[in-house]
């Protein structure tokens, strides 16, 4: 559940022999592979909306806490730089990030500069055929080290699954103005086993708020 990278059916099959770097062009990369202390994630969603609108929603970094899991705050520190804070209970990690390529309506590439996370990522927006919306593809690379102890113990979720879930949240927010959430559903006593299974089901990771008010 939280271990395997689940490639979506829309993902293009990739040439296996390429040695290209991840940030060049997501479509001609070798399939994500974990080696040399790196974790890769790649996921695609078909989202109803124009590439321009979806780009704008993603690019508004200060709103990221509305749809990315456990992002407490993003402070814009420059045209292309921002400071990110992730929080769980009394544990906090922070890092600075910069946007290294920014093509409105097409793609955004970013990387962390310093701090508790070492990551780089790219999001690509492409119109789907026959007015079916926009394919949004996210590629991310994490270097394990601090990250493994920080993010994974913080979230209880493999960073790869976190990337998949965050794109799912982004799609729901873009299409519906909210993110589905069942975490406050009333229930009777769960017992010991039921409580343990909440974590197995990923239900202990707070669903991002999506909208700001009900």
């Amino acid at each position, binding site marked *: 559940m939280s271990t395997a990278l689940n490639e979506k059916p829309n993902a293009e099959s990739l040439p296996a022999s390429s040695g290209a770097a991840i940030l060049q062009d997501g479509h001609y990369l070798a399939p994500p592979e974990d080696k040399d202390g790196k974790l890769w994630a790649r996921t695609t969603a078909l989202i109803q909306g124009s590439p321009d609108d979806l780009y704008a929603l993603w690019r508004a970094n200060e709103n990221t806490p509305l749809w990315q899991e456990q992002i407490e705050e993003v402070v814009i520190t420059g045209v292309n730089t921002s400071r990110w804070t992730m929080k769980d209970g009394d544990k906090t990690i922070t890092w600075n990030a910069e946007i290294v390529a920014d093509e409105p309506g097409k793609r955004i590439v970013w990387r962390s500069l310093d701090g508790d996370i070492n990551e780089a990522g790219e999001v690509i927006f492409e119109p789907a055929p026959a007015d079916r919306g926009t394919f949004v593809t996210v590629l991310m690379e994490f270097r394990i080290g601090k990250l493994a102890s920080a993010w994974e113990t913080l979230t209880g979720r493999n960073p790869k699954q976190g990337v998949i879930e965050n794109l799912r949240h982004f799609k729901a927010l873009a299409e519906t103005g909210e993110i589905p*959430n*069942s975490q406050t559903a009333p229930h009777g006593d769960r017992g010991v086993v*039921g409580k343990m299974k909440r974590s197995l089901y990923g239900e202990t990771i707070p669903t991002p708020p999506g909208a700001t008010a009900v």
Partner: protein
Amino acid sequence: MGTSKVETLTVPDPELVNPHDAIIKITRTAICGSDLHLYDGFIPTMEAGDIMGHEFMGIVEEVGKDVHNLKRGDRVVVPFTIACGNCLFCKKKIWSACDNTNPNAHLMEAAYGYSGSGLFGYSHMMGGYAGGQAQYARALRQRRPVEARDGPARRESALPL
């Protein structure tokens, strides 16, 4: 409260979570043949304490800020499938394939390969939502509940959908 064990308990009332939610005071609810799959343990990811019931009707008690087609006091039938109304599938009226309403879609992807819509009272992998065999339920994405017209026949029955 476990396989082959169902009981009535007092639990907290549901609350609005998202802007398109509505709280429904339930007047009629059904026990469905497919509840037996949950009761028997045939559908995985049912847990102790889960509230069943996926066919219910009632009176709108409270609506979220983005619900404009319903108001307090309206009588509604709530569909089993929770459908966002905006995704590619919903645009084609394939409501049960809505891909925006299951917060636990990753569980369905692991078990079935792909997730359908979230469902009321039908296991954690199909959303983890509380069902309608209760006094109140939180209904979601309520642009699509069927309005129950006045008339004794409709008011007195909740049909499996």
